[in-house]
């Protein structure tokens, strides 16, 4: 294929977007973009659409003046107002392409701010220029920045860090949390980032300015004292919070794929059993049994069904492996990321899959048109292709801008796989007027 000089309908977002999803998983943490006002507003809109929740992101609102003379005054003013307005417990400051290009040193500016304002609120800087990598790396970088800024070695705590290494839904995080509670070692884990409540808040009287929930700062500090780290997802990104904890504090890390589908969930569960010495609770074994039962029920509907899978790398890998387990064919597998490791893992799961790296939706469309696809599995960004080609689309991942329930969509664990099998099968049955 000839080199492309443009992207048509991106399958990627920019790094600052990813940072928001990480920062909102820490209790009382407000994200602030150092850049032009529009970045914050656009991403708020994008995320509000997806989560159907208010998502507040502050901005240093850089103007022409700040751009010429440096954005220090704007960033300090932004931090000051954010603290006055929201009383956050922490602030995550992500840069944008503008701040990076004018060369602002945010670490320096933040240090000055701390001294000038005598503020001891943790402020976590992360460099997320929009012109490099993508939202997935932005998420990973923000996670790493969080532990880099907050984790402190004190006394060995003996807990296990469970890091959600790539973005999944609030329902997914809730499921994993409940699993740990049901397992009986709620106190033995530090799960982060925890967006289970912050990005899926219940309605209540007098809702707080910053949605409640999230990993506590104390827990973030304590990640340095854990006995090990289990990271799920995020394996194709160069930044890694677990990797940092291992290098800096000798907390050994095991990096696993997202627990999507039977075998990857088995792997995750086995790892937990190994670390805790306690067997998976019976009700989860029952869930596993129900997943197997469901797959038996639907196997003929899914047999040989040709699926186009696209979206974030870790989710796409999980979906691809799950489709293989169910007897469907991941015929086109696409992600916006460029990663040979991703390619190798997909290839290992499916010899025949047509793999697209660094893809945009124009390329995905071309492949889908020629690959006799029966079903699309991915974000709502595939909706135009789905309509044009008359191929049913099961929406998974971010964004889901045109259907409700993104926050409640469960993908991980035995139950997530069961629901996905149902959703895929029903979409096919609908399509065939059965």
């Amino acid at each position, binding site marked *: 294929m000839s080199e492309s*000089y443009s992207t048509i309908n991106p399958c990627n977002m*920019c790094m600052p977007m990813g940072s928001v999803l990480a920062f909102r998983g820490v209790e009382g943490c407000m994200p602030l973009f150092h850049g032009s*006002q529009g970045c914050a507003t656009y991403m708020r809109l994008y995320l509000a659409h997806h989560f159907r929740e208010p998502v507040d992101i502050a901005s240093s609102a850089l103007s022409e003046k700040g751009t010429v003379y440096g954005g220090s005054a704007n960033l300090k003013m932004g931090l000051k107002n954010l603290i006055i307005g929201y009383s956050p417990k922490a602030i995550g400051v992500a840069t944008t*392409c503008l701040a990076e290009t004018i060369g602002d040193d945010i670490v320096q500016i933040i240090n000055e701010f701390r001294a000038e304002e005598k503020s001891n609120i943790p402020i976590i800087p992360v460099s997320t220029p929009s012109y490099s990598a993508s939202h997935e790396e932005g998420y990973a970088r923000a996670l790493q920045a969080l532990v880099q800024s907050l984790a402190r070695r004190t006394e060995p705590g003996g807990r296990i860090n469970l890091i959600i290494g790539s973005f999944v839904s609030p329902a997914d995080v809730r499921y994993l949390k409940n699993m740990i509670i049901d397992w009986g070692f709620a106190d033995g884990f530090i799960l982060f980032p925890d967006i289970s409540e912050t990005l899926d808040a219940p309605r209540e009287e007098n809702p707080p300015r910053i949605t409640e929930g999230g990993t506590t700062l104390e827990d973030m500090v304590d990640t340095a004292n854990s006995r090990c780290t289990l990271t799920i997802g995020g394996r194709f990104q160069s930044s890694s919070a677990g990797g940092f904890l291992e290098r800096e504090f000798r907390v050994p890390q095991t990096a696993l794929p997202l627990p999507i589908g039977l075998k990857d969930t088995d792997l995750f569960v086995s790892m937990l059993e190994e670390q805790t010495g306690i067997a998976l609770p019976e009700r989860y074994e029952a869930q596993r049994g129900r997943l197997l039962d469901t797959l038996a029920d639907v196997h003929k509907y899914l047999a040989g069904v040709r699926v186009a899978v696209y979206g974030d790398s870790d989710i796409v890998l999980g979906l691809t492996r799950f489709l293989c387990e169910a007897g469907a064919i991941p015929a086109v597998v696409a992600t916006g990321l460029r990663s040979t490791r991703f390619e190798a893992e997909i290839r290992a799961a499916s010899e025949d899959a047509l793999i697209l790296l660094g893809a945009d939706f124009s390329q995905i469309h071309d492949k889908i048109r020629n690959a006799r696809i029966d079903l699309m599995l991915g974000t709502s960004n595939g909706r135009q292709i789905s309509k044009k080609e008359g191929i049913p689309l099961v929406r998974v991942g971010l964004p889901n801008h045109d259907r409700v329930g993104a926050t409640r969509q469960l993908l991980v664990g035995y139950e997530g796989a069961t629901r996905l099998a149902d959703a895929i099968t029903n979409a096919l049955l609908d399509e065939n007027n059965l």
Partner: protein
Amino acid sequence: MSVIKTFEGREGHISQKTGYDPVSLSCSNESLAGAVSQRACVYSGARVVLNPLTDALHLVHGPIGCASYTWDIRGSSSSGPDLYKNSFSTDMSELDVVYGGEKKLARAIRDLAERFHPPAIFVYSTCIVGIIGDDLKAVCRSATAELGLPVIPVRSEGFRGNKNEGYKAACNALFELVGTKEHRPASPYAINLLGEYNVAGDLWAIKPLFEEMGIEVVATFTGDGRVAEIQRSHTARLNLVQCSGSMTYLAKKMEERYGIPYQHISFFGLGDLASALRCAARFFADESMLAKAEEIIERETAQVMPKIVYYRSRVQGKKAAIYMGGAAKAVSLVRAFEELGMEVVIIGTQTGDRDDYRKISCMVRDGTVIVDDANPLELRELLAVQKADLLVAGVKERFFAYKLGIAFCDFNHDRTTSFEGYDGLVNFAQELDASLNSPVWRLPLRRSSPIVGSQGSEIEKTIEKAAEGGVQAGV
């Protein structure tokens, strides 16, 4: 005294109307850092104005995000081409930032022109392009010469101001197209509609009304628009401007160069719609057209009135809050709420200017709060203080309204229901009714529990009362 407590420097942007004096409001300045303004950027303003041109190719010269967040997110409909539903980007990387992106841009333009054969290409500049100094003008000029189609630079570096600057950038880009194609309107009564974006098919409820009056709509800026229509729009005799914030600048330029006068109108609400039709008829000073306008107004009003009366009975007396991007829509909403018997208690805009706020303050009742460039914290406070039942705004505001238990109506570019024209007002009223009178707001936020009450358990209460000696235990 200010209505609510807010950030230092924001006090002057919020005011309550008292007596007959027009409110003077701080406005038209940069958003306060850290205050979570609802405003977007210059690029955003330019993109929303130009994007509804359905057959144009919209290429963003910048990092991927700017194109990702603006891909097919607006509800502007097309009756034909759908090229505008794609988001093209040069996807600038680190190397482009270091070495400059002009070559990449030039090749992207050439590739895309060959592949999609658009009648025009708009090239949007973004924040970093403004910093690294890519010469968009030069690249576009040579592409225009090479490809033989208009390749128009849009000066929309995000940091150069707010959306208003973006509107201007878009108007300047459009103005380059105006007058580049010859046309002889079939009707001596030819007009353009400016600031009509065909959201949810709005335009299709309006255009037939003008056509019935014998008026030819040469071009719509830019809803369901075609490049060729814009190119021959100089042949119209009148510009009707709806979204004044985005299009008055262009209307003035067209008046200057082509001598086309303009009038501000709105197609939303029975009164404003009737005024718009009359305005066009009066301009052409044609008696039979005026009679036709009156006939249409009478006929269409009679047709929708029973429904309006019904919905009015469902919503009248309720208190509405308005938070819009521009002032024109906000003003039109005030009148529409009057027609529906509702009271406006808050009215705000992202980008209104001094004149806009003066006009608004003359229209609204005593006690109404007027706010410029509000943020979520202020809006929350104001909604509570002003006891609003409903908020009319865009998606960013929708979910905090719901969290507060306040009804909501989306009057932004993302809406999927047409609100303009006669049936549009019915749709609007129906949506207000659906949200205001939904049973979900009446569901108990707290479950009544036999053992846990809101002020402690029943048992505790009984014990407390017994201790006070008021009630015998067990009663």
